[in-house]
């Protein structure tokens, strides 16, 4: 009982620690401009003006569309490529395999900041600057190692015997993958998709360096360009409201895929 209590206390501390800033931002987003700095955790004057304001500006809506589009496209491409690469890495012995794994680890560890200037120049030369592909490409580059590592860990958990069994049962290589391996790898694919999506959604560095107009600016960047109604007005309320809004897709994304992430789906396949 005592240990249970202690664990409960510890859990509570962690949850509070993680949630207080989020709740604070939410509270700010509902405050009026006058009460913004009163220091109250619970707003005394509730208002939805901040939300109305951000959706009135074309700037934010456009950025939201950019963010969703760029993140979704990057996620789909990275997960599809990552699935194929991870399957090959976990199942096959091909020349250059350890090189591939090593290089992808290298990319994952590479400091992204040092790539910003070269990428800026390259994209300016090639006309990719300030376009969707201009952001999608670097996102895929940095999401792929993440996808490959997570997915190959999942594929390694799937017993190879299952694939052999499917072949003996009359399946072609393709059918064995589609009907037996893919359903089992699904939780891993969804987990990876969530991780990659969050990575793309949250990125600020590339988004601010490789865009210049609303044409391809994503939400995190658009937020930093928020100004108040006048030069002397504080945009804190609007920024908070926008921050709350952009958290919603992530929560939806996770909730949607959570159902599919059933741990231990492979149990019972082989003697365990």
């Amino acid at each position, binding site marked *: 009982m005592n240990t249970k209590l202690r664990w409960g206390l510890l859990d509570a501390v962690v949850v509070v620690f993680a949630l207080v800033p989020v709740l604070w931002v939410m509270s700010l987003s509902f405050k009026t401009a006058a009460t913004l700095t009163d220091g109250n955790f619970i707003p005394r004057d509730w208002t939805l003006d901040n939300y109305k304001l951000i959706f009135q500006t074309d700037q934010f809506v456009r950025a939201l569309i950019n963010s969703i589009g760029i993140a979704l496209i990057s996620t789909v491409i990275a997960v599809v490529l990552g699935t194929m690469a991870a399957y090959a890495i976990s199942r096959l012995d091909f020349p250059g395999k350890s090189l591939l794994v090593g290089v992808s680890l290298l990319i994952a560890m590479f400091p992204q900041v040092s790539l910003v200037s070269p990428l800026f120049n390259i994209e300016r030369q090639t006309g990719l600057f300030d376009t969707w592909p201009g952001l999608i490409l670097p996102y895929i580059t940095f999401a792929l190692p993440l996808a490959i590592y997570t997915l190959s860990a999942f594929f390694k958990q799937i017993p190879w015997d*299952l694939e052999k069994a499917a072949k003996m049962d009359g399946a072609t290589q393709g059918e064995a993958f589609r009907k037996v391996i893919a359903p089992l790898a699904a939780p891993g694919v969804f987990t990876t998709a969530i991780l990659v999506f969050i990575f793309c959604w949250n990125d600020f560095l590339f988004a601010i360096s490789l865009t210049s107009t609303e044409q391809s600016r994503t939400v995190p960047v658009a937020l930093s360009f928020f100004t108040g109604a006048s030069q002397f007005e504080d945009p804190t309320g609007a920024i908070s409201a926008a921050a709350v809004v952009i958290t919603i897709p992530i929560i939806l994304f996770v909730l949607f895929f959570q159902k599919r992430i059933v741990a231990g789906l492979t149990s019972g396949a082989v003697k365990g």
Partner: protein
Amino acid sequence: MADIVLDKVTKSYPDGTTAVHGIDLEIADGEFVILVGPSGCGKSTTLNMIAGLEDITSGELRIDGERVNDKAPKDRDIAMVFQSYALYPNMTVGENMAFPLKLAKLPKAEIDKKVNDAAKVLDLTDYLDRRPANLSGGQRQRVAMGRAIVRSPKVFLMDEPLSNLDAKLRVQMRTQVSRLQKQLNTTTVYVTHDQTEAMTLGDRVVVMRGGRIQQVGDPQTLYDHPNNLFVAGFIGSPSMNFLPATVAEGKLRTALGDLPLGERMQRVLAAGDAPRELVLGIRPEHFEDAALVEDRQRSHGYEFTAPVDLVESMGSDKYVYFNVEGGAATSADLADLAADAGGADLPSSDQASLVTRLSAESRVRDGASTKVWMNLDKIHLFDPKDGRNVTLHEGRAAGVAAS
């Protein structure tokens, strides 16, 4: 239903190792053949080549008279039961068994009927809607069998299907597998490292070692007339006793005493190329407490006295261990056998140990000296260099005293 012919089938890998050296084997239609041997002997590789899961490097594999070297597993009409069962965890028991039929695009009604029939045979009807994760080991094993029998393939392949079950269940499933095979009368190739399984299940047993076939025959032949030292030591539990022996003055000199040699054996051993040093092999049940041997039998044997090291009473028999002076027999075959039995993990001793299976009525006690009788008709002599059984005459072993 089909016969399988392996014609000089070889498997070698790009790194230069050869797992299977030109195996010749003919398996008749409906026959139950066991491939047995220590780990790394190439038995699983052979099975995988028959299945089509591994490529054949050279040689020819024919099923039903047709060369299938280059056919994909799905086109060979073979079903396989894996050691790990390899059940699809995302499907129910019924879906698992229906999977091969669905791939074959059978009509739904026929699939249901076949699955239900197979489930009835294997007593799985109540579990058809469960998932593999909610089944016991024995039930999973039966589902794996069900998935194999449901589409009535030409050939069954089984890769150590019982080795993941606990000892008691394994014995029960062994009889079930045997009964099922007789009932379906489908050609079956079964791989195991357990010689008891090999002896009890198969019509014929193939003993393999280092990628080569050592001997093929029905279980009793392998037991009574082993071709070589390896087969003799591998088949039988407790295994055959081996002692060093030399030929001197028409007698066989061993640590147990000088054994008489029959005329024929003397002739064989007098030949120019006959080995001077030999390994004598005798099974535990060919000893008896001298006090219990009938006079009529006594003349076929040899008696010696030795101190008892240990007595294990099994109820039906007594296993009595003796220490014999003069060291253990050595040969490459014996080293292989010891490695397989985990001999490296046991404390080594320079004294040879002799295991005997005496009648339960024997009154031997630990530490006491006992007079023991051994049957000379059942003694094998092996050449330690190549392991060949020199007592074999026209494929049969007749002991050392035969004239």
